[in-house]
């Protein structure tokens, strides 16, 4: 399948201008942030001369193109600058916090898929029925709820009123010891260490924020599943399969569902965008130590290296995810690579 390899290569090449564009936009946006970072860096007691010194040290006295070149050079060396508020290298900060965000986002998406896909299939097998309408109202209500509001509501009900959930303060209650970081995902790390107590502790902390995000992402997945399933079920090959006497299960799963999953996989990219955005708000509500809450704090403090690092990380993460989705699509759809489709 030489043509298929070409498609994959072409897709990778397509990502390059996007990455370049992302870097430029990130640079422009963060340079436009209000406040003078040099003054901030130099401290409250600094005089004009020391601020100027800091400005020169940071390269902020140079022209924009020069600053950009310097920025790109730093990026290539893996240097994202130093955060004003934490005093640490931004790269280290992000690397330490990224697993928290990923664990939350991925858990939420998996949860969402587990609920939304069967819901969509169920709605599609009985279009126009009460099940279908109920599904529609449920997922529409889910996407209509602002995540920060859902989060607060869940905290109020499960923590404050029912006292079922732990305090919404981070990934793990302080009575537990953090598992040895291998993947950075607490659930996986603690399971690998066979430390089930910590596992449950981490899982309990994760449930509410993950549910909050999952509720928000149900709608696009369920809607797409329903539409794709309906289209697949009304297509000619389903009639062929039925006329050949294939079992209902085979027709539904092997013929309709597999075809319906193709468009659903492509919408996952969109859903990721949703989820990563909602992540910022959910992390703030649950005091989750991920990169979203880091960014919010940095924004408030006009900490431009941190904001820049965050926006860039999010965008690159998203580009990589979309690339993965496209490659996965190419792997499951035999038509890709033929005719260059």
């Amino acid at each position, binding site marked *: 399948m030489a043509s298929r390899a070409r498609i994959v290569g072409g897709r990778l090449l397509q990502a390059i201008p996007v990455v370049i564009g992302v870097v430029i936009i990130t640079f422009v946006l963060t340079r436009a942030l209000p406040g003078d970072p040099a003054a901030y860096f130099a401290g409250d007691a600094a005089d004009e001369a020391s601020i100027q010194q800091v400005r020169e040290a940071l390269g902020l006295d140079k022209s924009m193109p020069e600053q950009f070149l310097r920025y790109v050079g730093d990026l290539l060396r893996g240097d994202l600058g130093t955060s004003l508020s934490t005093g640490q290298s931004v790269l280290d900060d992000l690397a330490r916090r990224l697993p928290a965000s990923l664990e939350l986002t991925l858990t939420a998406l998996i949860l969402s898929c587990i609920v939304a896909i069967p819901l969509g299939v169920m709605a599609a097998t009985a279009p126009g029925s009460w099940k279908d309408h109920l599904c529609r109202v449920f997922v529409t209500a889910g996407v209509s709820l602002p995540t920060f509001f859902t989060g607060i509501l869940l905290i109020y009900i499960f923590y404050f009123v029912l006292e079922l959930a732990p305090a919404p303060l981070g990934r793990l209650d302080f009575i537990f010891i953090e598992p040895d970081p291998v993947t950075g995902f607490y659930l996986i790390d603690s399971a690998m260490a066979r430390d089930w107590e910590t596992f449950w502790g981490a899982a309990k902390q994760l449930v509410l924020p993950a549910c909050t995000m999952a509720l928000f992402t149900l709608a696009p997945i369920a809607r797409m599943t329903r539409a794709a399933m309906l289209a697949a079920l009304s297509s000619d090959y389903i009639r062929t399969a039925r006329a050949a006497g294939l079992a209902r299960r085979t027709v539904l799963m092997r013929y309709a569902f597999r075809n319906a999953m193709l468009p659903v996989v492509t919408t996952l990219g969109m859903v*990721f965008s949703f989820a990563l955005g909602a992540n910022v708000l959910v992390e703030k509500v649950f005091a989750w130590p991920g990169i979203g809450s880091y960014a919010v704090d940095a924004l408030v403090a006009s900490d431009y290296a941190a904001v820049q690092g965050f926006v860039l990380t999010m965008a690159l993460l998203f580009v990589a995810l979309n690339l993965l989705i496209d490659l996965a699509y190419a792997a499951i759809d035999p038509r890709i690579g033929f005719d260059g489709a």
Partner: protein
Amino acid sequence: MSDTSAPTNRFLAHTLFVMRQNPVTMLAFGLLGFLILCAVFGPALAPYDPLASEGAILQPPSAAHWFGTDQLGRDVFSRVIVATRLDLVISVGAVALSFVAGSILGSIAGYWGGWYDAVVSRGLDIIMAFPLFVLAMGIVAALGNTVENVIYATAVINTPFYARVVRAEVNIRREAGFVQAAKLAGNSDLRVLALHIFPNALPPMMVQVSLNLGWAVLNAAGLSFIGLGVRPPTPEWGIMVAEGAGFIISGEWWLALFPGLWLMLAVFTFNLLGDGLRDIVDPKQRR
């Protein structure tokens, strides 16, 4: 072609028909009417001044204060009603801007293709490469905390959706029989695009409009929740939820709940509107 009033009447009759057909659409239009009413007459409808302390602080809902009072003794109900105008202006403004920009970009890219299409598509890819809320955060932070900037930021992140829908719809119709017939009838390319192809892309765009109105409200509220965009003490749903969040732990749930529910109601309305709007602009639904 015939009497000018006839198509208008037909359109109205059709709109009424669509609403009668689908109770959900009727409900959605009803709610929309209610929200518009609040937006237009908000300050007149509100029983109290949304910015002034009108009573004791942190009072639970009562006959005098339906939604209770907040930490400064302001009437939550009045603030929620008055905030409708601001939130609707932001979402409608942003969606209108992105609708126009997306339609122009998408039409041209879909119709003429070639290098123009390549440039537009890559540009849209770059915008889409950012998780949208994150990009909106960045834009508002960079341009400054004003309502206008929230509108611009929301418009920018929504534009790719319209551009893509329009591009695809225009592209599949570029070679359609009726387009070629229109060329034979003496229409220039621009006229063919504007009068024959673009109107046919409207039905799927209407679904997008309704979803985006919802997102725009959520987006604006989310931004103000993290302290970007609209600033207190301006009544705005997102800020009110953010401010109320701190009081939930001490049991004063009404501060966050009512603006949150109102916000949800607005987004819910917009999301339900989609199918109805599409049916109204789709000629195939007429009979």
